[in-house]
């Protein structure tokens, strides 16, 4: 077999292997650090996570748009934070943990009912991530433990002071008693 024939054989084998190998999957992956959170009414939480860019294209953070659905609009407000700070997400990389979105608890439903919602991401080229479910539980405000008010504490201290003085006066020897 000549050298050129060997080269042709290697080239043909490479082509055959390239055809047999699976194509690289195009994927945009959003991985939040949390999948559920418990809030009190008025509380806001920032949900952070990572972005895995396997889309075949270099992206910026503001090339990715989040969509939220199926949430209770009377109790939750959700806002995208991803992309407010622009930086690069090169192809075939995983970002550091970055802010994805925020959730504000507008009010509390009766009981600590779980409030799930769905979200997914889509990039400027139309690559869509898998939809995920996030669960929010809004706990009713717990009343603070009974703490004496400052005025009550002052009265208590004054009373204790009076008792101390009276006790000292009783122990003082009366003049002329010899005690």
């Amino acid at each position, binding site marked *: 077999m000549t050298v050129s024939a060997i080269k042709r054989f290697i080239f043909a084998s490479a082509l055959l292997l390239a055809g047999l190998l699976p194509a690289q999957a195009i994927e945009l992956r959003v991985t939040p650090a949390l999948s559920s959170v418990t809030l009190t009414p008025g509380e806001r939480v920032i949900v952070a996570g990572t972005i895995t860019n396997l889309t075949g294209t270099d992206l910026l953070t503001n090339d990715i*748009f989040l969509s939220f659905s*199926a949430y209770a*609009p009377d109790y939750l407000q959700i806002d*995208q934070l991803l992309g407010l700070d622009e930086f690069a997400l090169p192809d075939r990389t995983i970002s550091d943990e970055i802010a994805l979105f925020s959730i504000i608890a507008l009010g509390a439903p009766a009981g600590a009912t*779980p409030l799930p919602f769905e979200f997914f991401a889509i990039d400027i080229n139309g690559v869509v991530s898998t939809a995920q479910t996030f669960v929010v539980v809004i706990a009713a405000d717990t009343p603070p433990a009974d703490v004496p008010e400052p005025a009550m504490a002052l009265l208590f201290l004054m009373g204790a002071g009076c008792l101390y003085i009276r006790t000292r006066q009783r122990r003082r020897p009366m003049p002329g008693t010899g005690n």
Partner: protein
Amino acid sequence: MASVTTPVQVILGDLGMENYENELRVGISIINASTVALANFRLTDIGLGAAKAINPPAGPPLYLGTLGAHGTALAAARFSSAGLTAGAKYLLSVRAVYQLDGVNYGLQLNKYITLPAPALPEMPRLRARMVAQTVPNYWNYTLVNDEAPGSTQWLASFSVQVAAPVAVTGTPPGWSVVTDNISYVLWTADDFVPPYVHQVQPGQSLGGFQLMSASTSSESSPATVAAWDQTIDTGGRTIGDYLPTPARRP
């Protein structure tokens, strides 16, 4: 109570934008890529970064009907572009509410847009405004012609869509009204020959358009003002916006 029942995949489609005279107009398409129809689909808020929203009015929801499976809904919004930088990116956020099996669910869609450089609009615009003022059970409207002095565009008709039973309780002198009291109201100046004394000339305003309804809350509805071109004596430019109107029954 809300719970995730059926996967809903709704996205913002291509956006049309015009940046002209310190105002950004955005044409918004909302695409339902899922296989379920979203009933009573209404927009509750449209925001663009820190830009001041001009229209739709803040508060009243804008009903877009049922967003069918694989269907598209369209809306428009205006923002002040003062303080924004051409070429910079801003986050457009659209909040909506829809119904599935009679339960209300929230929807929040996002898209970063790049502010285009100021440019002349594709079609010459009518410089006019519709100003609304509401008191319980009454909706009052005023037309303002902001055209330059000497403009040939005089305001000659004003129409508004409604979605609740209404009575027309105000029509300016020299104007007449046509309505079915449930879906539309159309006011027109009565002038059929020059000099069109009842039309609203540049720099002038005209109030006295009033609706009454048993409803006490508002929703946003499309409204249109059309001008009459005095030079060629025919219909002139138009402008559309959203106005608060009596809210439909829930």
